[in-house]
C-alpha cells in the first residue's frame, strides 16, 4: 500500500504522533510534515510512493502566502492545494480540518478532493476511510 502524506502544522505534536502510531499498527504507512516548503520537496521526491495526501486548511502562512490571500492564515491549506495542483501533482487529497466545510467553497472534483472530514474524528474512522480509498483504487 502506498504511503499517506499528512500535511498539518501540528504534525509533530504529541497527539499526532499518538495517532500515527495507532494508524501504523493498522498497517498504514505514514509520512508527515508541518512545513509548507518541506511539503513541496517531499512531494517532488516521493510522489511515486505517495498514494494519498491528508491536508489541513488552517496553517501558518510561513511567508509563502500573504495574510490577505489566506484570510489571515485560515485558508492556507487551500492555497497550498491550488499550488500543488498547478505544479501538476494530482495525488488525491482528503481534507481533515477543524474548519467547517460549509464555511468554504471548494470545487472538490476539480481539485481532486475525495473527502472533506471535519475534526474531531475518531482514529478508527479515519483508518477506515483510508483503507476504503485504497481498496477502491485497487479495484
Amino acid at each position: 500500500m502506498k504511503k499517506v502524506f499528512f500535511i498539518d502544522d501540528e504534525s509533530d505534536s504529541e497527539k499526532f504522533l499518538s495517532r500515527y502510531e495507532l494508524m501504523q499498527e493498522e498497517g498504514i504507512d505514514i509520512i508527515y510534515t508541518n512545513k509548507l516548503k518541506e511539503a513541496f520537496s517531499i512531494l517532488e521526491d516521493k510522489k511515486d510512493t505517495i498514494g494519498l495526501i491528508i491536508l489541513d486548511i488552517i496553517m501558518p502562512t510561513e511567508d509563502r502566502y500573504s495574510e490577505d490571500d489566506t484570510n489571515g492564515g485560515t485558508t492556507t491549506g487551500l492555497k497550498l492545494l491550488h499550488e500543488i495542483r498547478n505544479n501538476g501533482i494530482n495525488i488525491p487529497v482528503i481534507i481533515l480540518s477543524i474548519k467547517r466545510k460549509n464555511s468554504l467553497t471548494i470545487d472538490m472534483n476539480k481539485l481532486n478532493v475525495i473527502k472533506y472530514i471535519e475534526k474531531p474524528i475518531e482514529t478508527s474512522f479515519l483508518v477506515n476511510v483510508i483503507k476504503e480509498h485504497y481498496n477502491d483504487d485497487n479495484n
Partner: protein
Amino acid sequence: MSFINQIKMVQKLSQFGDIIENVKDMKDSKSALIKIFDYLNSLFNPRISCVYEYLYKENKFKILFNSRTSFWDDKENIKNFMYRPSNEWAIGKCFSEKSSILIKSPISASKEKKYYPFSDEIRTEILIPILINNNVQYIIILSLDYRLIFGNKLKEYSHTITQTLSLIFQLVRENELNKNKLDYFSKVTSFNVTTIENYLVELYNYFQSIIPIKIITLYIYNSYDNTLVLRNYHPRAMDNKKISSKDFDFLVLKCSESLSGLAIKEKSPLVFTDIQQNNEFQNKRLINTFKLDWFISVPIIAPNRECFGVINIFPECLNSQFDNSLLELFQISTSFLAVMVKLNNVLETEKFLFTYDKIFQYLVENEESKEIWNNLCELIIKQMHCEACSIFMKNKKGNISLVGTTGIEGNPSYDIVEYLPSEGLTGTAFIQNEPIIYYSDVQNDVHKIHKRKYREKLHSAGYSKSLIFIQIVDHNKNNIGVIRCNNKYNDENFLSSRFTGIDIYKFNLLAQFISNILIKTNWIKNSIKHIERSFNCLHHELLSPIDGILIHIEWLKNRFNKIDNIISKSVTMNNVDLHELLKGEIINKKVEDMFQSGKLIDVLVSTMGKLEDEVQLNLEKISIVNLLYTCRSFMTNELKRKKMDITIEHLGFPKTLADPNQLMRVFYNVLRNSIKYIDEKEKQNYITIKGKQDHNYLYLIVEDNGIGLDPNDISKAFIQLYRGSNARKVFPQGSGLGLAFCKKIIESHGGEIKFTKINKPTILEITLPK
C-alpha cells in the same frame, strides 16, 4: 449799469461775508455752485452768463448751466457755445493761468485772436475759475453789456473771489463727500453677498456716488504659485465698446512681476499713475483701448492678514482730483469683503461636505463599486466648478489605478487607467508628501511647471488649463490614492479657467474630509474582516483541545487494552484502577461526550451569530419522558447536595421526532439553571416538570421557586451573551449562552421556548411540534 449802481455794486462786493454766508451750509457742491452763480449774477447783472465745466477726458469745456436770458433760448446759440476747447484765448488763458480774467474790449480782442464773445453787445467779460486741488474744474463767465469803471481793482478782487469760491466749493464738496462716504460705508457693510464676483458689481455701483469709475477689475490670489487670476470685471462695456477677455493681455499675473502684486506685498492700497508709460503695467491693451492712465490697487486682506486677491479701480477723474482719504475707505471695505467671503466659504463648504455624507454612507454599507466612485467624481465637479475629475487608488501592484471618473465630453474615460508611482503628473502627485498639489497653466509656457513630465495624451487632458491633485491617506498617513481635477480652458468662460486660492482652500477641506471618510470606511471594512477571522480562530481554539483529548484517550484505551490482555493484575495510578476506568462505560461515554461537545461548540458558535447555517439535527423518534429521566440522573449528586428534587409528572407524551442529543442538552441546561438559581431564603427548593398537549404541539412546563427574572430582562433573556441582573448576583461568571443555545435548538425543531412567569414561581414553557 450806471455809475452809481456800479459804486453800489463795489460796496456790495466788499462784503465777502455775504457770499460765504450764502454758500457755507450748502449740502452738495452743485447747489453751492448754483448759489454762487446766482449771487454773482445778481451782483454784476450780466447780459449773458453761464458756467462751463472742464471735461478732462476730452480736454474741453462744456456748459453746465446758464442764466435765464433770451440769449440761451436760441438753440443756435446753445449749439455754437456748448463746447469750448481749453486752449482757446479767453478760456485757455483762464485755464492755464488758473486765475480770473477780465476782458475790457472783447470786440477788438476778437479781431486779433481766436476769441469768440457771445455777442456784439458785450462790453466786458469776466471769467472766474473755480479750482479743486489746484486744477480748474469750472469757469463762470459773466458777459456784461457795460464797461466796468473799476476794472483794475476788480481784477484783484476777482483773484480773491476765485480763491474764496474755490475754497468754499472745496469745503462743500468735502462735506458732500464725507456724507457719501458714510452712506457708502453703511451700505457696504450691509451687503448680502455670497460670492466675491457679485460683490464687485455692488462695489462698482456704490463707488459711483463718491468717485465716478470707469472700470473695476477683480483678481483672486493663488498662494500656491503666487499668481493673481482675473476673476471678474465691471462694467462689461465701456464707451460703447464691449470688453472681452481678448482685451486683457494677461489673465494671470505673477505677483512678483506686477503692480497689483506690490499692493498685496504692502497689504495696503496703492495708487499707480502714468500707467501708459509704465512698463511694469502689463495689460497695455486694455488701457490703450479705453484710455486709462491711472488706477488704484486695493488688496483684499482679511483681518488675520490672509490675502484673497486685489480689486483694481480705474477712476474717471484725474489723479489730481482724487481724494486720498478714500483709500482708507476702500481698504476697510475690502477687508469686510474678505471676512464675509471667508464666512461664506465655510458655510458653503460645510453644505457641500454634508452632501457627500450620503455617498460615503453607501460606501461604508456596500461593496465598493465603480458607480459610487463615478458618482463621487460627478459631485466633485459640480461643487468645485471643474471640468473633469478622476480618482485613482493604490492597487496590489503598488501602482495607482483608475476607480472612478467623469471623463471629458466626447471621451468616456481617460486613456491612461494605471500609473506607476512618479509616472506622469498623476504618478508624481501620488508619491508627494503634500496633501494638495497644484499645476497651473499646464498648456502654457509661461509657468513651465513640470511640463516635461506631462505626458497625458492631448485629447483627454489637453483641455486642461490647470490640474489639482488631492491626496487620499489612511490613518497611518500613507498615500492610498489621489483625486485629480481638471480645469479646462474655455474661451467663452475664461474667468473660470484656473483654480484660484479660494478653490484650493475648499479642495483642502475636501481632501481632509475624503481621507477621513475613507479611513473610517477602510477601518470598518478591515474590522469586519478581522472580526470574521477572529471568529474563525475562536472556533478553532474551542475545537482544538477536544481533538487532542480524543486522540489521547483513544491511544490510552488502545494501549491499556493491549496491556490488559498480557498482564492480568490491575494497574493503578493515583489509587484509581485504570483498567476499570479505561475499559468501562465511563470512558466510552466520555469519548462520545467529546463528540457531542464538538457539535455543541458548533451550535454555540452559530448562536453567536456568525455561522448562519441551520443546526444539524439527527432526528429520531424518541420518548421525551425518558430523556428527562436520563437528564435527571446526571444531576443526582448535585440535587442531593442542595437537598432538592426534580418532580416529573405524568406527561403522556407520544413518541416525537427530535434529536435526542440536542434535546438532552436543552433539558440539561434548563434544569441546571433551576438548580443554580435557587432562592436560599425559601425553606424548600423545588423543580417540577409538567406537560400538556393539543392537536399539534407538546408543551413542557418547567416550574421552580428560584430567584426568577427581573421584569427588565424578559425580552433579553434568550439573547446570546446576555445575563440578567438576578443571575449575575448569584453566578457572576456565567457565559450568557445557555438560553440562547436552547432557543436555537428548540426553534430548529420548529418549537418555541419562553418564560410565562418570571417569579414566584418561575415558569419556563417549551413547545415542540408533534
